[in-house]
């Protein structure tokens, strides 16, 4: 009897101490999705990401190790909307059928998210990137993380049905925590609702919708093409007439033009993080949103004390 109890205890201990033995290997294309997957999967999964933090995912060049990751993975979480289009070719090359579109280990995190700036199926380059369907930066609205984690949880349960309860509990805990934080973030930016800003790229529509910011213009309207002087002059005069309060800037983009406009308007240049771990302060998903909200709130507060 004692031996049997000891045996049960041993098995239990082993299963806690070495979860990765049976753990499901999940690859996420970005660090943001990796962070959300880790929240939902907990110790059921081992998560890896492909695009390094702080690298522009649309200009990303995959390497052989990424192929290896995908070959050994049991599940894949992608941004979709053409943002990480290269992953299709990689998965096909790795020959992992389970991760292909429609496979039981594949999830497009954009499913169910209310999408903004729909541009149709054609690759029309109108307001920035050559986005296929819609603006793809939907993870920057924390409310969307609730929908995204639902999709991720559904896929994980499909792949590891024996851990169903744990996955559901993890997700509920994460969503509860996020809702509490969301209330705090909304309160922090509520006094600045309707504030006008200029952004470097069209990266922040979802963030702007959630926190009620008015992005009046973009400094670089076409990705990779330097702004013309006439455009810059228009941006500055618009910024002045609309009383813009800050310039939002992505950390991996050149700073010259943004700094120039910020100086001309006498407003702060606010560097926001677009992905988890792209800055030391953004270690996980909640830290990412927290960092951005705090940075903007601080910039606004400095202007009108």
């Amino acid at each position, binding site marked *: 009897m004692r031996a049997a109890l000891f045996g049960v205890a041993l098995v239990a201990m082993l299963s806690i101490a070495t979860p990765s033995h049976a753990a499901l290997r999940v690859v996420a294309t970005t660090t943001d999705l990796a962070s959300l997957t880790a929240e939902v999967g907990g110790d059921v999964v081992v998560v890896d990401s492909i695009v390094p*933090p702080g690298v522009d995912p649309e200009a990303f060049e995959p390497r052989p190790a990424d192929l290896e990751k995908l070959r050994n993975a049991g599940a894949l979480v992608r941004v979709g909307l053409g943002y990480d289009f290269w992953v299709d070719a990689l998965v096909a090359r790795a020959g992992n059928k389970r991760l292909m579109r429609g496979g039981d280990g594949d999830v497009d995190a954009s499913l169910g998210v209310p999408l*903004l700036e729909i541009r*149709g199926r054609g690759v029309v380059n109108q307001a920035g990137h050559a986005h296929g369907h819609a603006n793809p930066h939907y993870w920057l609205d924390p409310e969307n993380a609730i929908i995204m984690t639902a999709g991720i949880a559904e896929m994980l349960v499909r792949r590891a049905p024996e851990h169903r309860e744990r996955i559901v509990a993890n997700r509920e805990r994460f969503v509860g925590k996020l809702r509490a934080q969301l209330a705090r973030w909304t309160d922090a930016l509520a006094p600045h609702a309707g504030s006008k800003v200029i952004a470097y790229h069209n990266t922040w529509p979802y963030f*702007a919708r959630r926190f009620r910011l008015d992005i009046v213009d973009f400094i670089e309207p076409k990705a990779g093409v330097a702004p013309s002087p006439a455009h*810059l*002059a228009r941006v*500055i*005069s618009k910024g002045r007439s609309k009383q813009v309060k800050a310039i939002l800037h992505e950390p991996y983009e050149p700073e010259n033009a943004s700094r*120039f406009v910020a100086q001309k308007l006498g407003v702060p240049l606010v560097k926001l993080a677009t992905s988890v771990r*792209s800055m030391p302060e953004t270690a996980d998903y909640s830290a990412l949103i927290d960092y951005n909200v705090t940075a903007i709130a601080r910039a606004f507060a400095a202007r009108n004390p």
Partner: protein
Amino acid sequence: MTVTSDAVALLAMPLAASVVFVLIHAYLGVHVLRRKVVFADLALAQLSALGASVAFANGYDVKSAAGFAYALAFTAIGAALLTFTRGLARTMSQEAIVGILYVVATAATILVVDQSPLGAEHVKKILIGSILTVTGEDVAKLAALYAGIAVVHWLIRRPLLALSRDESSAPYRNRAAAWSWDFVFFLSFGVVVTSSVTTAGVLLVFSLLIVPAVIGAAFSKRLGLVLAIAWGVGIAACAAGLGGSYALDLPTGATMVMALAASLVLAGAVKAFIVVDAGIRRTRLRMLARTTTVGALLCVVASSAWLIVNPSGDQPLLALLERAAHVGPPTFLARTEAETYESAVRDIVRFQSEADRLDAMERAARYQGVPLADDEIRRIASYQQNYNEMTRGERFVRDVLQAKARARERWVIGVPAAVVALAGLALCLRLMPGAMRAIRNATPTPPFLKRAIP
């Protein structure tokens, strides 16, 4: 302030920077052309970028003193390599070594950036400047740096010019002396291009270096005159490029490169047709008129042949003509077809503007009034998706009808145009026996033929 006064303030500093750049780069360009190492600037700039990346990977800020020291050290290595490989120029072109240096430095930069932590992507981009956002402080610093280098070059102008004139470094019996002058030249050159590439970008710096110097060299052999022409033309082209970039709403660096290229074409025309005596000018103008006519006729023949073979393909020349003559596909369609075509064109605009209207509505609701609920956003998205699909449908209708019109145009326009152009070509060739003879005379008879013809 108005948009215009913003523009003047915006363009003043780039213009000042351009003047500073032209003064030093046109001068260095003369050397580089004589030494036949036109791509040395790219190789040195890339090496300095490699130095900056190494500094960043080691935890230094690119704009700190350490960052600058790394960049300078790598530039010096490049200068040393260029100096020593000059001796190899007898067995192979130094240009080949310059090219290899450039690609190796670029590849090494990619590998270093890949190994460095957080935000390394950033480094690559800091190293490519944009002349539009240059500040007064930048211009003052650059002017001081270039003035210092200009003084050094003035003091050692004799050995430098001698070395640039003669490829074998013969004027200097003393090898070590020749090598040290060469090293000073390449190092100062490296410092100049490194600083200018980070403020103006690779393309513009290359053009500033080569184009004015080429124009100057085309008109004179005397250094003073070459420089005067290069400076004048360079500054004028930069000013035109900046103005054009503002007036036409185009990216500045690329427009300035185009303006410099245009100045080269203009200078070529001046050299060929204006600074020659009347007889030669007349002959050349006649030649130009004929080649232009023959070229245009050949274009028409090729274009109409393409229209006959593949009417539904892209027809650039025909599209241009149709737009100029305000003639569209409806002219060549039956009445009902023309109506369908016109309604398709109208609907494309209408559906697109409906989608845009929804977009504007959603954007406004982000920050004013009652926020839209998720389901309302989803409904807007699905409407937009529908409008986009409908636009695609109408585009398809438009394209099919346009192809139909083109299929008719091939008989109405394609065949007659081809016949007329071919007749014109035949006429030109018949009128040009003189030209044909001139070409025949200008071509030297190969020696074996000379021997064969008694």
